[in-house]
């Protein structure tokens, strides 16, 4: 036992250890100090926090759906599909034209649910196509390359897709029909809750659960897990690895397409070629936060990130007296990613990956 205490003692007094502890304490102090002084100021009522929480959950649901695609691909290929945000963009950007056409023809007003269904179909089809093309053209030739090579390709693909879509559809901002406004709002405890917020949240939850069931219970899902454990052995067991990878990308694309429609329903404005980049980064953060490769983790990470982004600036930064705190929302998200990666690289729900060098 003596040796154990001594070992910890030794470890604590290494410089990096000290630094990490200082960082840990520093972050904690900043968060607590900011939060307490904000709460003490009494600027915001409980219903305000509730409204922010709900908004954060809805935003987080969209992140979560994109994050699922990241997580799935990472779980199986151990690669970050950096262009996944663009897969998301492709679906919604294309479907906006169908939405416009349906709105103009009056079909939307008559059958709003059918319209959403049609948009969902188109968006998912386009996103899936883009995801599969990506896999076939940019990633498959590099399947056995070192880890960073496909990442670089993915970055290239990301920019290629952005600007290709800008070339196709122009750089203007498109608008989705206002489904959200049609749904109305509820007043709960003095907070305005949009029905669409709840709908987005539930839709994401259902899709996540469906995916979980698919991966855990179906035969294809099992072969996916086998491939993620070990590609060679899975191949030896008679699993068609290529097919599994294609299915993985297809599912990721479908979820991204669905996320696109949810985004359009929840936030109809500002649909453009660039709309995938930032949510893509956020979704990656969410996936890492929840434990990359872990399906419920991606969901949890997305929700957590959404809520943190929504509440964080008002709760923490304002208390510190930082002006225009909401401007630093993205900074909070990135700092959170860094902190998670330093202190808990396996994420909230992730298991420690096989003995990686400490």
């Amino acid at each position, binding site marked *: 036992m003596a*040796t154990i205490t*001594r*070992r910890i003692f*030794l*470890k604590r007094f*290494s410089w990096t250890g000290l630094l990490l502890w200082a960082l840990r304490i520093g972050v904690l102090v900043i968060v607590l100090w900011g939060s307490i002084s904000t709460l003490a100021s009494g600027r915001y009522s409980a219903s305000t926090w509730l409204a922010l929480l709900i908004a954060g959950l809805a935003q987080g649901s969209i992140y979560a759906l994109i994050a699922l695609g990241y997580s799935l691909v990472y779980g199986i290929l151990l690669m970050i599909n950096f262009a996944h945000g663009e897969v998301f963009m492709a679906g919604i950007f294309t479907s906006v034209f169908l939405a416009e056409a349906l709105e103009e023809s009056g079909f939307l007003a008559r059958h709003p649910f059918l319209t959403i269904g049609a948009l969902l179909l188109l968006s998912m089809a386009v996103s899936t196509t883009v995801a599969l093309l990506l896999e076939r053209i940019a990633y498959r030739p590099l399947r056995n390359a070192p880890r960073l090579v496909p990442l670089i390709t993915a970055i290239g693909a990301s920019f290629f897709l952005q600007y290709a879509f800008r070339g196709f559809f122009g750089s203007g901002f498109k608008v989705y029909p206002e489904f959200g406004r049609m749904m109305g709002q509820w007043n709960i405890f003095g907070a305005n809750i949009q029905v669409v917020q709840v709908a987005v949240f539930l839709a994401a939850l259902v899709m996540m659960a469906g995916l979980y069931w698919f991966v855990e219970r179906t035969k294809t899902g099992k072969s996916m897990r086998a491939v993620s454990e070990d590609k060679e052995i899975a191949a030896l067991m008679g699993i068609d690895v290529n097919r599994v990878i294609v299915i993985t990308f297809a599912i990721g694309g479908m979820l991204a397409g669905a996320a696109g429609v949810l985004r359009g329903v929840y936030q109809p404005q500002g649909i453009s070629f660039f709309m995938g980049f930032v949510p893509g980064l956020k979704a990656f953060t969410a996936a890492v936060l929840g434990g990359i490769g872990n399906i419920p983790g991606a969901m949890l990470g997305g929700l957590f990130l959404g809520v943190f982004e929504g509440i964080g600036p008002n709760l923490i930064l304002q208390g510190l007296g930082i002006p225009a705190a909401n401007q630093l929302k993205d900074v909070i998200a990135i700092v959170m990613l860094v902190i998670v990666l330093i202190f808990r690289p396996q994420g909230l729900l992730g298991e420690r990956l096989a*003995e990686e*060098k*400490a």
Partner: protein
Amino acid sequence: MAAFFESKELVKKFGGLTAVNRFDLKIEEGEIVSLIGPNGAGKTTIFNLVTGFYSPDEGAIYFRGHDLVGMSPHQITGLGIARTFQTVRLFLNMTVLENVMVGQHTRGSSGVFGAIFRPPSYRAEEARIRERAEAQLGFFGTRLTGYRHDQPAFMLSYANRRRLEIARAMATEAKLLLLDEPTAGMNPRETQEMTELIGRLRDERGFTILFIEHDMRVVKGVSDRVVVIDYGRQIAEGTYAEVSQDEHVLEAYLGRKTKDAA
């Protein structure tokens, strides 16, 4: 007086699996000790613990009066322990000579400023590093000398890669060499040569050697002492002759009836 090298009650667990279980080992300076055991017995894990790649869950490791637990691999190398790997791991795109010069890293001190301005001290150090690296390569006869110096490592044959890896470890000017299956994949003639080489390493260069080996002829041929482990625990220790008669050893290598029954 503290031993040259000593590990006390080392424990390393991976999840539910105990890879190394209360492992004790003492090595005196100038000894050649071989570490044998069935596959998965925890031999390489012990190497990784000693060289700082893993930190033990329990136990202590002492080397010439230093406690190695909690040190990082490069610090341990600096103290004088160098290793080779089971799967040869060279810097394949560096030249043969550069590979060995990297081994000299801890014996140099020049930094960025030296490299840019190249004062006399830097040039003297580079010359010394090069000279010593060449000397290490010379240890293997003509195999790694001459035009080979400037060949990238990936152009070498398998056996030469093994040799180069040992030369690289030698170049760290360690006191204790840990060789992980130095003859794996070699043909009988090369194996014989390697066996002699291990002996020469001690006799001519004064290294203390701990090595993992499966080939019993090598073990028999060169070790002063043999340590047998199974399930991360030492099950026998002694000369080759002693160990080869030990019933635990036979059981470990030949069958596990008693264990299964238990």
